């Protein structure tokens, strides 16, 4: 069996008193492959992406890329890793230096790693822009002369300029208009096939992971609640949070025809996580065991893992009876 391109084992990331990522393990095989990280605010999904790229220090666990431990890389080895793993951020408005022309931004990336000789910098920048669906003439422009979608394309081009094997996409389309979103997603799909890219797609949108990711992990308060093939996870979830999340997502086609699982209370504070299962205070299925014992992420079906003591019941569809009236919210 081939070793995966990226193996994250029991990753922990701490910011002061807050444990933003609390024991996350996942594998990403070599491309083309997409792994979706789905969650709401406070789930730790963005932090995982940044930790993988060594943009934030990890406080525990290991990240192994191509067989080498990422955490122990220094100097030239660390710089070499930066060629292999890249990131695209969420905010198109600040993702490019406003005082640099587009061409200069791309050249900087190319020059940092000597991807092409100096005389070919301009030409390669033009090629990268064209690959991202932009006229090479954009190289002369400044970021404020581009639309949000165009800037995001430049950000993607910049990330791909160093020819990475792994791309982390942190909510790349959340700040964009509907049609622009669709174009960018199509671009990602095309690049994935052309470059045999492996990517970690961080989003809160189930439709996006459905289109672009073979596998998806659902995160809650720094832990993986459920991990499995995307279509299976969406069709037959094994964790109550996934069920609730899925039922809360509005859909054009299913409008009004779904009944919602209502979660009591507000999203939790990461600074003071509850004992036992982190989800139990809001879980409609919580039993005594959930308060006392942290559920391990275990395989409930081939390739399908869930961290829930009652996962089998959820999977069988017997546990959850959806209510359609909202319950009282706790203060």
């Amino acid at each position, binding site marked *: 069996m081939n070793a995966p391109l990226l193996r994250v084992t029991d990753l922990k990331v701490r910011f002061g008193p807050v444990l933003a990522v609390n024991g996350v393990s996942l594998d990403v095989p070599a491309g083309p492959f997409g792994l979706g990280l789905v969650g709401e605010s406070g789930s730790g999904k963005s932090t995982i992406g940044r930790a993988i790229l060594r*943009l934030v220090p990890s406080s525990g666990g290991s990240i192994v890329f191509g067989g080498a431990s990422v955490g122990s890389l220094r100097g030239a080895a660390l710089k070499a890793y930066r060629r292999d793993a890249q*990131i695209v951020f969420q*905010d198109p408005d600040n993702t490019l230096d*406003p*005082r640099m022309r587009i061409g200069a931004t791309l050249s900087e990336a190319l020059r*940092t790693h000597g991807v092409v000789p100096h005389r070919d910098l301009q030409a390669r920048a033009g090629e990268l822009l064209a690959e991202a669906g932009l*006229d090479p003439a954009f190289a002369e*422009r400044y970021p*404020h002369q581009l639309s949000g979608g165009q800037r995001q394309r430049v950000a993607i081009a910049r*990330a791909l300029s160093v020819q990475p094997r792994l791309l982390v996409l942190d909510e790349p389309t959340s700040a964009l208009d509907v049609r622009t979103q669709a174009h960018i997603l199509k671009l990602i799909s095309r690049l994935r096939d052309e470059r045999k890219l492996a990517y970690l797609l961080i989003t809160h949108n189930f439709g996006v992971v459905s289109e672009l990711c073979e596998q998806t992990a659902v995160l809650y308060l720094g832990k993986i609640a459920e991990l499995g093939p995307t279509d299976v996870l969406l069709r037959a979830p094994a964790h109550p949070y996934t069920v609730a999340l899925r039922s809360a997502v509005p859909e054009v086609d299913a409008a009004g025809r779904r009944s919602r699982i209502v979660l009591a209370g507000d999203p939790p504070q990461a600074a003071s996580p509850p004992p036992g299962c982190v989800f139990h205070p809001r879980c409609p299925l919580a039993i005594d065991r959930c308060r006392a014992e942290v559920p391990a992420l275990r395989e409930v079906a081939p390739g399908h893992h869930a961290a829930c003591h009652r996962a089998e019941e959820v999977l069988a569809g017997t546990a959850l009876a959806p209510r359609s009236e909202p319950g009282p919210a706790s203060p």
Partner: protein
Amino acid sequence: MIESPAIAPADAALPRGSAMWRAFRANPLLTVGGGVVLLIMVVAIFAPLLAPFPGDAGNATHPFSVLHGPSAAHWFGTDQVGRDILSRVIYGTRVSPVIAVIVLAIACVIGVPLGVAAGFLGGWLDEAIMRVTDVFLAFPPLLLALALASVLPASLTSLTIAIAAVWWPWYVRLIRGQAASVAGRPYVEACRALGVSRLRIIWRHILPNSLTPLLVQVSLDVGGVILTASALSFLGLGAQDPTPDWGLMVADGQSYFTPDWWLVTFPGLAILVTAFAFNLLGDGLRDLLDPRRSFLP
């Protein structure tokens, strides 16, 4: 599907007319401010040729022309020892603005690197730099400058050093805030993710995006430094008579203000015009350097 850039409306709107008129229309602040600053420099260089009574900038005294009001012979009048004020104001362009520029240059040379280091690198370096800065900032500026100037021999050099020593901490604080803010932006994080060296990030991204408030502050401070220098000179701790320092001229002329208003007014106007011109220049440069507002391609 390739997207092409449409013609940006800004490019299509260059004003018509001669080159100078176009430059002015494109950036009036820069042309007026820059023009006056240039004029001041020219006057400073050609002072001996422009001043009607060059000796009056030095030790000359004319007991029979004391305190004459503005006239054909003396456009700005004469002072309490009969010296031609116009000549002294003209020679003053070699003193006050020069001191201001040197002081601010020193303050920037010290303040900017410290501020960038503190803001971008953070951690213990940030703490160390800011605590030292705080100590300097805790002193009332004029008092500190006084203290420094009094232990040094009274001269223009001591004056310059004393004021520069008081000025740099403000710039550290200003730049640190900006640098810290820029350091947190996605495009800087993208550079880190790309493995761009820290030095290059500072030089190419942090500095250019942090300097704008400094530019404006420096242009405003020209007037402030001139006035601080005048206060110190008045107390005898900097420029000495007969040096034609504008601030010293204003300070000395105060006691003659009623009814001999011209001793204070003309040097005072010179300070005003200089401060204002640098202020406009600063604003103009800020606009010029902003890709969003410039008309240059």
